[in-house]
């Protein structure tokens, strides 16, 4: 099994850089939504096509639900971003984060025949940066660095000590 003790220095540097970069991006995505009172996911959801478009319409049909989703989404991103940067509850954060980003991808996938009115980032065919970020974040969960460079180190030690003593 791969564990963080087997990484070379350059592997560790790469994994950490990737972790901090994604953490930074996710955190800012969250914070920019939290601090902008005008932000709403409605515009994004209006665009939705493909398998999640029904889900998006359902959210849009209910003002209270939309407001709840907006709050959960923005704060979820903030917490996931912080968790990635600090290496705290890293694995669940990385897995939940990658699923969340994958949902964004599935809401507006750049499949052949799907046209969107909001401008897209670059030229995409099936694969876009959102999907790549989801994959990369999932990869980070498989190559964890949190027990060396993260608060999970303390919690794990604490937990280990307690189980040892107990």
């Amino acid at each position: 099994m791969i564990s963080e003790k087997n990484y070379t220095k350059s592997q560790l540097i790469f994994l950490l850089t990737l972790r901090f970069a994604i953490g930074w991006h996710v955190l800012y995505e969250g914070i920019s939504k939290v601090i902008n009172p005008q932000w709403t996911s409605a515009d994004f959801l209006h665009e939705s096509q493909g398998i999640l478009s029904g889900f998006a319409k359902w959210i849009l049909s209910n003002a209270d639900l939309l407001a709840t989703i907006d709050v959960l989404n923005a704060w979820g991103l903030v917490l996931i971003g912080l968790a990635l940067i600090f290496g705290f509850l890293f694995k669940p954060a990385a897995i939940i984060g990658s699923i969340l980003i994958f949902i964004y991808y599935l809401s507006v996938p750049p499949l052949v025949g799907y046209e969107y009115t909001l401008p897209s980032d670059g030229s995409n065919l099936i694969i876009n940066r959102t999907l790549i970020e989801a994959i990369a974040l999932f990869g980070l969960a498989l190559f964890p660095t949190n027990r060396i460079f993260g608060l999970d180190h303390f919690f794990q030690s604490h937990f280990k000590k307690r189980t040892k003593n107990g």
Partner: protein
Amino acid sequence: MDEQDKGIKEEKNMPTSDATEKTPKDISRRNALKALAGIPVAGLFGFELSRKINYDKNRRSRIVQELGLDKMDFSIPDYGKDEARDIIRIGIIGFGRRAEQLSAGLGFMHPDEVERRTNNNTLRSWLEQENLNVAITGICDVFDLHAQRGLEVANNNLRDGASKLPIKRYRTYQDMLADKDIDAVIISTPDHHHGFMAIDATKAGKHVYLEKSVAHTEEELNELYHTVKNSHITFQLGHQITQSTVFKQAKEIIDKNVLGKITLIETTSNRNTAEGAWIRHLDADGNPKPGDEKSIDWMQWLGNTPYVPFSIDRFYNWTKWFAYDTGLIGQLFTHEFDAVNQLLRIGIPKSVSSSGGIYYWKDNREMPDSLHCVFEYPDKDLTLLYSGNLASSRSRGRVFMGHDASMELGNNIKITVDRNSTQYQKGIASGLIDTSEPMLSFNPGAGQIDAVTSASERYYADRGLTNTVIGGRQVDVTHLHLREWLNCIRENKTPSAHIDVAYEEGIACLMAHRSYLEKRQVFWDEVNRKII
């Protein structure tokens, strides 16, 4: 594996020369430090974030200050004060689709519609509406089915449920006007009835809320104008658009000369559906809508228009014929003119030339489906353009073009600074102002969903014709417009869409229509006050 083992194993991968000399305590401390690696990253993030927030705030406030827009407040301070007032008894003449919306604005809705809106979660904003203290006590419609529907709506008040006052159906509008138990009337019939009904209502001493367009002929318009001018009634034309918060913002922006000298205003209508092209005699499943000679008083429906045999097509799709309407001008340009006139008070144009044709909806219609009108205001150094098309829904917006900036006005406002502006020359040169994209946008509705569904409704919403936001709450602008009318009746004041603006709009529309019919430029004779 315990903590120490882990530390040692990990150390193997770290190329430190003195790793073997470290004590377990050192290693443990070192590991603890490594575990905090996220802190500098988070610190850097926090630092950059505060820089970004300050930068944005600074930039925004500098732009807003530069434009003089830092003090704008558009709340309606007394909205929602639920004070008890004398009930105004309203009669509605013509109970079609528009009358249902007007009734909702007054606080009345059909039980079926209440159920539908409960199910799709769009009822709340209606329930939060201010109590206007009115009763719908009379319904007049030539179609039994519509009259019946009207009676059911009138009997379902948002607050009280069933009406405490009796609700009467009147067979003719004259019967309604003769009844002293009606204080005010709302006229929402097809357009060919508007003028003379409003004249008769004014003469009968009833307050009038008249849907656009104002009048179908110049003679009728003149008579209406003089009748209302010489009366004590409160007249309001049904242009709810100015009740929207964005219009108040737009007014402020223009008054503060943010746009510089405005010499061109471009207004458009962009629709591409059968319903939008006034083909409305079929229901959603393609079956003919109800109505026949037994249930419709056809002679009364025709009014003063030339006799034609009963036609369900004409009954539902009257906008297609010149006898009953002026088409794009009467149905859609009226809103555009009102929007511009309320902001700039441009009044009656010096000349109008229109052209167009029936290019797509080649049915039995007379009305053009593509129409373009140029209104000249040489005294004001201004041209107003209108371009309406019923076979393309490409959104072309409503744009006020000034020397310093242009303003696109719909359900929000977008201001883009002109790259050759004089006023903002410094700001552009210093990089504070970017001319490649809208510099400012006001969107009071952000964070709210609009409860609109069909393409036509979406169209109206985009043009600020349905809802606005006051204090974070969605409010129906028709409700606000009716509220203004009722408040003016009670306080003997003049509402925003008063008879003078109605007259200006009526003349501008009749000029545009005549220009299309006569295929020539028509002029306004200011001295004799007539179209030539």
